[in-house]
């Protein structure tokens, strides 16, 4: 960095640039070419710059700045330290790909004018950057709510559909409730000192009770944004409702800001000293992960499936945070560092591959106008690019080597594995069970992903209309390739990446993995020592690739490459059509059967008398009926009670004020 210009200044400029690009969109709100072919690529470039600057800032000293704007006695404090830098890297590189994709995606503006869309989109980006930089409660809240607002408007782009409006409302409502909780938690953390800058909160020494209160409030607040059970209900509604680049942005990037907030509060501001916080986070995370993955396996709408899988990933991240908290509270810093690295790594990995997958659904949506899995299929023949790039995302998302998802899961499992010797007997029993559940979740994720990929891209086309589906355009391809590249690099160069993000771990925990990794080569990932555990994805990949190529060459060389192409064997039924393939519901039927109590199902079975026999199954979320509807009912009752105040009778109104007066006269005494 040139000494004159600090990284934080550059990031501020970048935020302003994003805003400027957004407002440029209003210049010609209907000129789609100008907006999509000029403004969005510009936004992508800014994103790239942000990523590079943040990458450069990693490992450096924390930089601070104070702006003129803000409250009179609380101007905006900004701070760029390693934690925010890690997430800024994410916020830079991933949106770069998404914006490039969007440049090809927003052809004819859907619903709202493209210019307005461009504004909302870039305000969204800028506010997320400000969230990462904010260093006092007010700035944070402003950025946080701006983020919620802009994303809300993006979600409701196609506001003509009632269910999309409903989704947007639900989203904004829960986001607002979460924001209130966050604000409360900040209030608690000031400890009555009334200093709302983060520096002031750091300095506070809270009593265990208040510290725990603050932590739980933060967990609720940020959990509402991240989609932790039971505050997840908005997520599977809002993400599918939004245009795909926006879904990608929300799932890939926005959820991570919530993780950032949780880390910031629990480790940086509260110094994470109480072990049972970790247990809470661990439990919530496990429930969320299991819940998310189970529901993602039974979805029949491709974007909903991905949304639930995001919930699952957030759950895994929460598990990691829980472990970190436990280890940190017991001063097992090496293990804490391991878990923390897993958390950060999974944030990076997930943001890349989930954005990739959402963008792929976007391309599919554009090519086929179809979102329901039951009407797709065989698209690999029509859109090979999207299909093969999606495969990368699928493998990563299933947590399989050699791609990015596996690295973080590997780290997480390692930190489980070396956890014995916790001074708490209960924990020692909880940990293996938790590990087992994590393993189960990982395996189920594979199931969900096979369903997702197999039903969309493989098999025969379930609808004749799919014949004229077209592959993604150039811009879209570039965006997809970019994200796939990130996924691959994160997969095969783990220790290089970890060396960079280690600064954040070091900042939060005081120790990291870097010095351990220094000892081995860049290709090897051995957090403790090669004898204990090691993983070399590059060699892994090379070996398999070599075997594949060599085997192929050998077979061709020794034998022949002859191929005959008849039609598939139809078991003698000549009229077997594409409908014979298992649909989405059928594919996940075993899961529904095994985990029956986890779902709230309404099934309709055809009977012999049906003139048009059909089978249908509707899977609903338990938490609606357990938590949300009762709350709504209660509020309704209270209002019914209260509106009787306004009965319309003037005499009664007079009586109110008369009685008020009398009561005050008789009761109120100085």
């Amino acid at each position, binding site marked *: 960095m040139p000494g004159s210009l600090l990284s934080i200044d550059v990031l501020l400029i970048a935020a302003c640039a994003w805003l400027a690009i957004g407002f440029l969109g209003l210049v010609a709100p209907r000129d789609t070419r100008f907006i999509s072919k000029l403004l969005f690529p510009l936004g992508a470039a800014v994103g790239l710059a942000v990523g590079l600057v943040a990458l450069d800032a990693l490992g450096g000293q924390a930089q601070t700045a104070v702006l*003129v*704007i*803000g*409250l*009179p006695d609380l101007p905006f404090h900004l701070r760029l330290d390693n934690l925010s830098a890690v997430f800024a890297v994410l916020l830079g590189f991933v949106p770069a790909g998404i914006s490039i994709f969007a440049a090809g995606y927003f052809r004819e503006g859907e619903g709202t004018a493209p210019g307005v869309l461009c504004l909302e989109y870039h305000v969204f980006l800028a506010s997320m950057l400000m969230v990462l930089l904010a260093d006092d*409660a*007010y700035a944070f*809240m*402003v950025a*946080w*709510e*701006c983020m919620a*607002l802009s994303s809300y408007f993006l979600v*409701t782009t196609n*506001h*003509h559909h*009632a269910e999309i*409006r409903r989704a*947007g*409302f639900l989203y*904004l*409502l829960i986001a*607002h*409730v979460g924001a*209130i909780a966050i*604000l*409360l938690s900040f*209030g*608690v953390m*000031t400890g*009555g000192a*009334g200093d*709302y800058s983060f520096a002031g909160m750091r300095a506070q020494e809270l009593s265990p009770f208040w510290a725990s209160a603050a932590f739980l409030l933060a967990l609720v607040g940020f959990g509402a944004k991240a989609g932790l059970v039971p505050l997840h209900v908005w997520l599977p509604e809002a993400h599918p409702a939004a245009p795909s680049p926006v879904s990608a942005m929300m799932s890939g990037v926005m959820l991570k800001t919530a993780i950032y907030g949780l880390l910031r509060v629990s480790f940086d501001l509260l110094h994470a000293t109480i072990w049972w916080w970790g247990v809470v986070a661990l439990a919530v995370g496990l429930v969320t992960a299991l819940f998310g993955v189970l529901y993602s396996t039974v979805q029949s709408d491709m974007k909903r499936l991905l949304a639930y899988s995001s919930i699952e990933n957030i759950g895994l991240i929460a598990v990691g945070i829980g472990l970190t908290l436990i280890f940190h509270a017991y001063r097992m810093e090496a293990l804490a560092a391991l878990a923390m690295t897993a958390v950060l790594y999974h944030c990076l990995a997930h943001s890349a591959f989930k954005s990739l997958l959402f963008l792929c659904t976007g391309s599919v949506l554009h090519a086929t106008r179809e979102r329901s899995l039951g009407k797709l299929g065989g698209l690999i023949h029509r859109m090979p690019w999207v299909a093969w790039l999606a495969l990368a995302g699928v493998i990563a998302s299933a947590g399989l080597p050699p791609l990015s998802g596996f690295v973080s899961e590997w780290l997480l499992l390692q930190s489980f594995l070396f956890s014995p010797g916790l001074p708490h007997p209960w924990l020692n029993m909880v940990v293996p069970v938790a590990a087992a559940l994590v393993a189960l979740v990982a395996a189920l994720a594979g199931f969900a992903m096979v369903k997702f990929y197999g039903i969309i891209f493989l098999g025969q086309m379930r609808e004749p209309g799919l014949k004229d589906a077209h592959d993604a355009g150039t811009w879209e391809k570039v965006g997809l390739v970019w994200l796939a590249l990130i996924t691959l690099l994160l997969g095969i160069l783990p220790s290089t990446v970890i060396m960079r993000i280690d600064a954040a771990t070091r900042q939060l925990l005081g120790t990291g993995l870097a010095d351990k990794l220094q000892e081995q080569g860049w290709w090897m990932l051995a957090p403790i020592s090669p004898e204990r555990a090691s993983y070399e994805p590059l060699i892994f990949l090379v070996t398999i690739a070599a075997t594949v190529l060599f085997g192929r060459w050998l077979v061709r060389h020794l034998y022949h490459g002859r191929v005959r192409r008849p039609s598939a064997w139809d078991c003698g039924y000549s009229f077997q059509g594409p409908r014979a393939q298992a649909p989405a519901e059928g594919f996940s039927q075993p899961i529904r059967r095994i985990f029956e109590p986890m779902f709230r199902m309404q099934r309709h079975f055809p009977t012999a008398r049906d003139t048009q026999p059909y089978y249908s199954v509707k899977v609903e979320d338990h938490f609606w009926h357990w938590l949300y509807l009762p709350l709504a009912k209660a*509020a*309704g009752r*209270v*209002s*019914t009670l*209260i*509106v009787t*105040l*306004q009965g319309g009778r*003037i005499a009664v*109104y*007079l009586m*109110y*004020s008369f009685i*008020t*007066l009398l009561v*005050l*006269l008789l009761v*109120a*005494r*100085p």
Partner: protein
Amino acid sequence: MDFFVLMLVIPLVSGALLTVVGERDWAPNLNVIASLGTFAAAVGLTVEIVANGPRFAFGEQFFIDSLNVFFVALTAFVGLTTSIFSGPYMRNEREHGKLSAPRLRLYKSMYQLFMFTMLAALTTNNLGLLWVAMEAATLTTVLLVSLYRTPASLEAAWKYFILCGVGIAQALFGTILLYFAAERVLGESGNALLWTHLIDVKGQLEPTIMALSFIFLLVGYGTKVGLAPLHNWLPDAHAEGPTPVSAVLSGLLLNVALYAILRCKVLADGALPSGFAGNLMIGFGLFTLLVAAFFLSRQRDVKRMFAYSSIEHMGLITFAFGMGGPVANFAGLLHMTMHSLTKSAIFFAVGHATQKTGTQLMENISGLIKINPLIGWGLMLGTLAILGMPPFGVFASEFMILTHAMKHFPWATPILLLALGVAFAAIFGKVQPMVFGETEARRLPHAPAITPVFLHLGIVLMLGLYIPPYLTRWFHEAARMLG
């Protein structure tokens, strides 16, 4: 000529003038010009006060200090924008055959007189005259509320008149008691009701009398502020009157009533150091906030709903001033400003929306953003602002109020948050389908005036991100004056 005199004379004269000239084509412009003049005078006065401190006028009967000059500026400004807005609005009403020429004349003259009474109420130094002005404001607005002469509007006006009349009567009793207490200190001289004199001797005023007097004053003026359970007139009056009137009622009248309470609170605090007045206001504030929040979810008429939201915010402000102290008072003043700006902007947008769709029932309104994107966005942004969404200024003041409450009255925070959450769910859930969705558009004979809406929202947005230092100093001074 003196800015102050100008400021009072212009609305008075123009009001009379508008009565005699009747409804000509240029009458609306005259209305606007008069408001513009008033605003200019108010600005001049403000500059003067900020420059060389408080001053008297008409002997000691009028007194302008940094507290009320700020209200004066706000009132004149909103008065101006409302008059701009009401021009095309009223024309459209006439086109739709809802109003006749004489009604329009009545409207304009009463509007100017109303401005006069409020400015007088704000600037007077004599608590008796304050009462008189408040009563006069009620009388003028009663005629404005019943402008449509429909059964509903008559009923609303009648309730408004009776409830506020009775309330004001209580306030008069309180004033008499105050005078009674003051007379024993200041003697027979006629200046026992002059605030500037009272403030000097507030320590010596008889506590028991002051307590009684404050109760009466609170109940009296509180009725006009709309504190529950004295609020019943408010939603009716807002919903049935013409929209510009709803705008000034919410944006200005409530503020002025609250201002009256504040003046009295200062004296009561002086006489009763036990925080008696503050606690009363805290109680009323919280109760109002809670009640209004739960009322919101059952509304079907859009103006009625926003009237309840005004009640809610008045509760919040009362709570803030009840807490007292420089920070809370600062927040309270800020919130008053934000609320009157935002709420009037919302009513402007709502007015045009209802004219376009021809109904006030929310379930029949949809797709405003299609009919007229500016109105749609205006309503949407205004709603988000009033719900305390950053980066709008309302959030700034709510943030200060909340944090201050967390520090000094932690037990109150859950109530505040509950109320705010419920209000959010109720209002936003109803506004969203109005703004979004499909619709069949309807042309208006006269193009709506959108400028005021975005002018207000722009200011609110600006203040949310950056409060200019001189404004801060000004607020701080006013806050200190409130103790």
